[in-house]
């Protein structure tokens, strides 16, 4: 009885060749964006405290914030913040038992990806135009 149907059983995914479902990718991205936001908050808090330290300290922090490094960190943070916010809202619905079916999770995954990009672009437009 030990080796009945050995060749036809489902295998656990081999993580190096396994293509993760979209719902798994958007789930792990929630944790990654949440932790990556440390970079943006540190940059902004450094900039705030530099403003009350000295003109020299503010000049350095303000240069970094307005440089291309600052642009990449803050734009990345804006996306991470919007993504984490939308994914967090999805988690609140998950906790209430809503949207747990696979087809619903795939749809909400695409909503997270598209929604976070749209909101980031909107943030950049408001920042540079308004």
């Amino acid at each position, binding site marked *: 009885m030990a080796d009945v149907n050995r060749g036809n059983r489902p295998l656990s995914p081999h993580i190096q060749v396994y293509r993760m479902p979209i719902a798994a990718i958007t789930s792990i991205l929630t944790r990654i964006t949440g932790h990556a936001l440390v970079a943006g908050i540190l940059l902004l808090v450094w900039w*705030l*405290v530099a403003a009350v330290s000295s003109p020299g300290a*503010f000049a350095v922090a303000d240069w970094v914030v307005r440089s291309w490094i600052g642009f990449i960190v803050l734009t990345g943070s804006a996306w991470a913040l919007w993504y984490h916010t939308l994914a967090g809202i999805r988690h609140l619905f998950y906790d209430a038992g809503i949207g747990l079916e696979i087809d619903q999770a795939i749809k909400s995954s695409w909503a997270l990806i598209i929604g976070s990009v749209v909101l980031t672009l909107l943030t950049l437009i408001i920042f540079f135009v308004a």
Partner: protein
Amino acid sequence: MRYITPLKTAEGLGSAHTGTFQHWALTVSACALVLLTPAFLLVVGSAIGLPQEGVIAYFGRPYPALVTALFIIVGMIHFMKGTRVMIDDYFQHTARKVAIIFSVIFGWAVIATAVYALVKMAFVTLVI
């Protein structure tokens, strides 16, 4: 035959002795941050690019100061609870304790620094 009913496993606060407090704290701070996030992005977006006196005067006003303070305080408390979940998932034994201690110290250090800067801006604006 077991005489224990399923109620036994659902009663009490479990081995952590705090029940679902960790999860509930994350839920409450998450709801607050849903409201604070758009407000914070608009506030900070308006401040970036101002000269130093402009930044101090801007955050000396009540609304930008309160939104920024609330976002950073609630955000870092949410961060500490969130990293705790990650640490519990991936770290064991001494590494887990070290990581939790580091996360909590880091979180409160960021909160203290931001609050110090905002309070000082409020007083500087008051003097002017």
